[in-house]
């Protein structure tokens, strides 16, 4: 009996590994054959990736999935969204369950090397912050000595939190939770004094509260969290496609190409860079194994980077995030597309 169980588990492990082998090949070919892009997203973080009232996934990360699907498959709706938790996301990617991970994941050395992922760029420069209730009377993270803090397990925030409190010689009591929804529930029930995650995630979480005005996000940002989409290490062509789709969205904003004027610009623009980007001259798409209009479709799907930002998490939305570090380099931000030539 015990032996049976052991063999069973070995079988399960080996099957998981077999799945990985299937994913080792040419991701582009596989996605095209399948006709659907499997995109790993958050289990539910309003503004970044969450199903709306009709069950359609929307958000900042979702928009990137759509752009890649539009570039590769020619149809932004051909995406299967696979909700992943902080714990399951990297396994889902390395086992081949998803082709692309767009789930506000921090680019770190260890993930890039030891976990065999390739981060293809940064789509949101973030940092870890704390949210508390206003009536707690706390105005700085330095006043959180002895507090109970809710934290998503399996994230970099868990390590930052430990480091921050150690560096400031303070103590805290962690409450480990598995998903953002669970964290919200515990925080709302005051089972923890503070909730910590990336500042953008806090803003998104707060926006979903019934009483957002009663909660404040503390000014301290305790870490660098460059969030970006990731692909498996080793499939360089697929990595290039994802990377240059992101750059296409950024470049489009830089050159003023929007989803509204893109068709017109594709015909009339005299800017050689825009012509190359939209496939009017040269055939950059071919070098990626795609057609000439790949970037045009990607931009048309949900608009350029700025449009996506404004529509999902920008200041006009309930989440209300300013561009800050995420503005174009021409505006004093860090967003900088590599040249299309």
């Amino acid at each position, binding site marked *: 009996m*015990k032996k049976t169980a*052991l*063999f069973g*588990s*070995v*079988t399960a*492990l*080996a099957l998981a*590994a*077999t799945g*990985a*082998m299937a994913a*080792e090949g040419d991701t582009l070919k596989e996605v095209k054959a399948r006709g659907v892009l499997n995109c790993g997203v958050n289990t539910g973080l309003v503004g970044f990736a969450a199903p709306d009232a009709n069950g359609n996934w929307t958000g900042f990360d979702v928009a990137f999935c759509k752009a890649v699907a539009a570039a590769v498959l020619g149809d932004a709706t051909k995406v299967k969204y696979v909700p992943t938790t*902080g*714990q399951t996301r*990297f*396994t889902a990617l*390395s086992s081949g369950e998803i082709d692309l991970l767009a789930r506000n994941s921090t680019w770190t050395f*260890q*993930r890039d090397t*030891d*976990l*065999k992922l390739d981060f293809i760029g940064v789509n949101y420069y973030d940092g870890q912050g704390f949210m508390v209730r206003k009536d*707690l009377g706390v105005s700085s993270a330095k006043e*959180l*000595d*002895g*507090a*109970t803090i809710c934290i998503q*397990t*399996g*994230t970099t925030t*868990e*390590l930052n*939190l*430990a*480091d921050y409190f*150690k560096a400031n010689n303070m103590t*805290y*009591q*962690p*409450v*480990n*939770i*598995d998903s953002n929804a669970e964290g919200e*529930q*515990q925080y709302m*029930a*005051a*089972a*923890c*004094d503070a909730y910590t995650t990336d500042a953008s995630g806090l803003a998104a979480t707060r926006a979903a509260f019934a009483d957002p005005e009663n909660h404040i996000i503390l000014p301290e940002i305790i870490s660098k969290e460059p969030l970006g989409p990731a692909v498996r*290490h*080793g499939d360089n062509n697929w990595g290039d496609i994802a990377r240059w789709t992101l750059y296409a969205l950024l470049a489009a904003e830089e050159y003023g190409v929007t989803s509204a004027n893109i068709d017109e610009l594709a015909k009339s623009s005299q800017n050689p860079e825009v012509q190359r980007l939209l496939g009017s001259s040269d055939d950059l798409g071919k070098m990626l194994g795609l057609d000439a209009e790949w970037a045009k479709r990607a931009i048309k799907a949900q608009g350029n980077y700025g449009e996506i930002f404004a529509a999902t998490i920008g200041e006009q939305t309930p989440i209300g995030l300013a561009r800050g570090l995420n503005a174009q380099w021409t505006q004093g931000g860090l967003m900088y597309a590599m040249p299309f030539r």
Partner: protein
Amino acid sequence: MVDYPGAASPPFRLSMLIYDRRYRSLTIQAVVFIGVMLLASWLIDNTLRNLAIMGKTLSFDFLFRRAGYDIPQQLIPYTSDDTHLRATIVGLLNTLQVSILGCISATVVGVVVGVLRLSNNWLIARLMTVYVEVFRNIPLLLWILVILAIFTETMPPPNAYRGENPAASMVMFDMIAPTNRYTAVPSIGMSNPPGVIALGREGISWALIAYAVVLAAAYVAHRLLRKRAKRIQDATGRRPSTLWISLALYLVPVALLTWYFGLHLVPPVLKGFNFAEGLNLDNAFVVLWLALTLYTGAFIAEIVRAGIMSVSKGQTEAAYALGLRPRRTMSLVVLPQALRVIIPPLISQYLNLTKNSSLAIAVGYMDLRGTLGGTTLNQTGREMEAMVLMMGIYLLLSLIISGGMNVFNSRVKLKER
């Protein structure tokens, strides 16, 4: 086929491996064994090869790297500077803690409920039936989540105890403060502490050792006393009363030690965000323990009931005829015989409880699954190693429990002479 003793066996031919009954079973076993081994080696080889393709080699080095994360519940000192190995041990100890306490409390609940379900009191028997059926037939995870929700939603947060006119007040003479994070209970303080022996980073108080020694001595004295009473009973037929002397043997030295060390209760005090000074019983632990106890207790109740019902009614009637009262009949006649039926299925309930404790992740109790199989696995990305290690540990744990209980079983089972 010559089959009588002394017959010379015919020369061996290859076809006999299939057509001769004496060899056929050997053949089948050999074929199956080779098949299983081939399958196993293929699976292992396939796994290793696929890991190599992904660029991941099997390595347990990560266990000796800095863990970097904190664990809320710890039985031994642990900080984020310790290694993943120590984090694993902290998790293992948490698993053991909830499993052992769970097994004990589930057994108590199970025995009481099992006996009460057979009670002649209609109401009690029916109530116990309802408990057993409700807990046995709803998945454990749901019970854990329901109990957690009750604890989180109905208990006040610690700061409800603050201020002139607090929204919540402490219970039991201002000694216990239930909150939605933990239950703050008094800790034991000493006004005359005798110091500690340092054992690595862990310290053991001399007071604890003193109590252990005194209690052990009292136990030995108690046994001697009972032996003497039995000797007198055997000789004269009259058993001298030992109750008061036994009680004094235990209580007087303990009371003296308590007075000497100046033991007293330190009530929890609200300091900053949380209660301090007292002992905070983490809700995650309490919820998990409670859920495991009630769930497994329902199964054990049925096992106990089956065990009792397996003892023939003639035994009870004979005991009554000898003049034994119902309670003594139960404890002296029925239960010892019922144990023989109860123990084997009880072992599997203990195993189930231990394995079910891995549902701790649902309430954020950091057991082995939460540390090694959760955060460590995630931060290091060593899924295969962490899973294999975790499976090995659970397997070992189960085998130890099973082995221990089998020894106990062989002691209570019917002795054949």
